[in-house]
């Protein structure tokens, strides 16, 4: 049970920690950063570009147009990977659509500082039209946010109407990236995978437990879900001390970067 490693991303997310005796209570600020847009010359953006190239090679024989990003548990970097990958595609001149199918804990709209109004759930419930829910958020990037809280997410996600919508969008966009809930918590990701050409599996190098990652992969296999590959996030840089890596960064900053301001 393996998945190819197609991307590796360094750690760099702000965390707020509250100490309680010896127990650490960690709360994350879900403000997402799209480094590929903020700082296209940074090594971080370069890492996402490498991921995109890996995906391009995976899709040599067949078209990988609709992909979902999924992980074992919450907080591993699904949304960050999805947003940055999308930004890289958009930079390439592709028309990108993000769809937030994490109906239980929608977060995608936050990256673009918009309110979670009139989204996919509203459309599926018949409260909104297809044209209303697509929001243009950035150059080449459109977004369908989640919208109202759906009481039965699984049945909504399995609906024919959603399938039709995604099929319809295939004609209008080059790349469609779908955000979904973690696979070990709920079954939503298995259902949404039916809409996609493949799943990108995100594993955090510092927080995901080995058993959880293995279990997630076996869930994917059981459900016949195609894993395109695995992206390692929050890779802490033990590499930083190494001669080779240090020099890579120096070389990068001197020749390609923006003068070293984009250290991360």
């Amino acid at each position, binding site marked *: 049970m393996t998945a190819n490693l197609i991307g590796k991303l360094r750690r760099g997310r702000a965390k707020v920690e*509250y100490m309680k005796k010896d127990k650490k209570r960690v709360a994350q600020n879900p*403000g997402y950063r799209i480094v590929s847009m903020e700082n296209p010359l940074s090594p971080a953006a370069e890492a996402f570009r490498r991921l995109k190239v890996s995906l391009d090679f995976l899709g040599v024989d067949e078209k990988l147009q609709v992909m979902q990003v999924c992980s074992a548990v919450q907080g591993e970097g699904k949304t960050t990977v999805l947003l940055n990958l999308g930004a890289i595609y958009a930079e390439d001149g592709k028309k990108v659509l993000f769809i937030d199918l994490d109906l239980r804990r929608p977060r995608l709209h936050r990256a673009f500082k918009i309110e979670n109004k009139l989204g996919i759930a509203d459309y599926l419930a018949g409260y909104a039209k297809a044209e209303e829910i697509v929001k243009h958020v950035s150059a080449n990037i459109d977004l369908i946010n989640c919208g109202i809280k759906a009481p039965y997410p699984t049945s909504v996600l399995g609906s024919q109407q959603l399938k039709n919508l995604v099929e319809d969008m295939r004609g209008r966009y080059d790349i469609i990236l779908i955000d979904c809930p973690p696979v070990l918590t709920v079954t939503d990701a298995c259902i949404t995978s039916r809409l996609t050409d493949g799943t990108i599996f995100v594993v955090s190098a510092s927080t995901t437990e080995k058993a959880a990652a293995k279990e997630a992969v076996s869930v994917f296999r059981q459900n016949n879900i195609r894993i395109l590959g695995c992206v390692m996030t929050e890779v802490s840089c033990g590499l930083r001390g190494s001669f080779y890596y240090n020099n890579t960064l120096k070389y990068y900053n001197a020749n390609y970067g923006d003068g070293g301001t984009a250290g991360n």
Partner: protein
Amino acid sequence: MTDIHAHILPDADDGSSSLESSLAMLEREVAFGITDVVLTPHYHPRRGYAKTAAELKELFAAFAEEVAARGIPAGLSLGQEICYGEREDVVGMLDRGELLTMNGTNKVLLEFSVSRPPDDISEIAYKFSLHGYKVILAHAEIYPWLDLKTIASMKAEGCFVQINGGSLLRGSAGAAKRRAKALLKDALVDWVASDIHSFRPCDWGKVREKLRKYPADFFGKIG
């Protein structure tokens, strides 16, 4: 010392029904060493407290005048304790000036239904921040559905936490007291306030005694 949550303003809500009782409440606060009070009448339409901002400002001006005339040394400012409901466009009402923020700042004192959590609790801080507001969770310890983890993550998103001094004292509901202590222990509390009503006085002496072992300042000015 600032008390940021007090229902002292007369005739505005269930806090105080007469000017006399309001003045008595304020004098009692001052006797305990409170120097500034933010008057925060309810906005709670389901319970019938839905005075408009203009009405509240009028009441406030009259009350402040009376306080000044009697020479009570308390700095008064006006805010509102807003009951959040998903069906109402609270943020829009704030934008239109129909509801009041705390002392004209961007901070909003927000309360919820005790029995039923809002659907979008994790979205609240974000929703308000989009319009430039910061949320102060009023008496964060009294909600059975609001656990420490949620509060910590809301704080990480920019919320502030206020707890009631009374919850720390004997006679308060056990669970609320437990949660209040846990919040203090985890250093999640920004303000301790009285939430004073005429029927719910606050013994600041005892509260301060209880707070002595925590290093933070819980009575900062709103600003």
